[in-house]
């Protein structure tokens, strides 16, 4: 992961920095936005992953607090932390061309897998496998 430190996107929820990802445990980092339609499609799958105990961190790209709040209200909220990438710099540093994209990050904060596009139900097995590998 490139080094970054994003401010909170929502009041009362911590923002996201790269150090928080290197805490010894694998994470999923989801790059998303309220204006992104496929992000709605993948919301149930993220919810399922969160229910299975996967720590999911969010990076919200070029968004507003109100829109983000409404989006999470409507589609569910699987995120532990959400960093606001309003200038899109972290998105570029990650090499992400669009939203949504999801990264499997190992306990040392290294990206081990990049999933481009929405997570559909058939991708869950692969992501869980990558997370397991990242935890070994």
């Amino acid at each position: 992961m490139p080094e970054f430190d994003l401010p909170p996107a929502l009041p009362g929820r911590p923002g996201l920095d790269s150090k928080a990802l290197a805490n010894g445990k694998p994470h999923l980092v989801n790059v998303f936005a309220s204006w992104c339609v496929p992000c709605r499609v993948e919301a149930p799958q993220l919810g399922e992953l969160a229910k299975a105990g996967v720590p999911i961190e969010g990076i919200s790209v070029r968004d507003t607090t109100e829109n983000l709040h409404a989006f999470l209200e409507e589609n569910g909220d699987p995120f532990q932390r959400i960093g606001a990438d309003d200038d899109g710099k972290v998105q570029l540093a990650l090499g992400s061309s669009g939203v949504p994209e999801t990264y499997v990050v190992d306990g040392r904060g290294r990206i081990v897998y990049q999933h481009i596009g929405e997570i559909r139900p058939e991708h869950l097995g692969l992501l869980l496998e990558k997370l397991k590998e990242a935890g070994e």
Partner: protein
Amino acid sequence: MKQLLVLASLLLTAPAFAQEEQSTAPYAYRQLGDPAQETKAQDLMESLRCLQCQGQSIADSDAPIAGSMRSLVRERIAKGEDPEAIRAWLIERYGDYVSYAPQLTTLTWPLFAVPAVLMLIAFLLLRRRFTRKPSEDGQ
């Protein structure tokens, strides 16, 4: 009346979804103060592909991600970074695809070599045609 109708129709439309915000990066829509640096940045921006509107350079595109990319380019140029280093940084993340300036690599060298080879073949063929031996001409 017509104007009223237009106005009424405008009032009836509302965006269905939240809109993507423009980048808040400082140099998405602002030029650098130093004209020499801005020219350098402009040259680079014209040869970088917008990741969203893929037929446009980031200098041309109004997509928000292009704004983020322009600011990245300008901020790094302002810090004195070499344009080619910035291009390399982007290629490292997005592949050769992000650059409109083709790089000479193990994969792309035929693109550069083939025209040269064809020119050489054409030259050899033409030379043969225009320099027939006198004995052949005499037949």
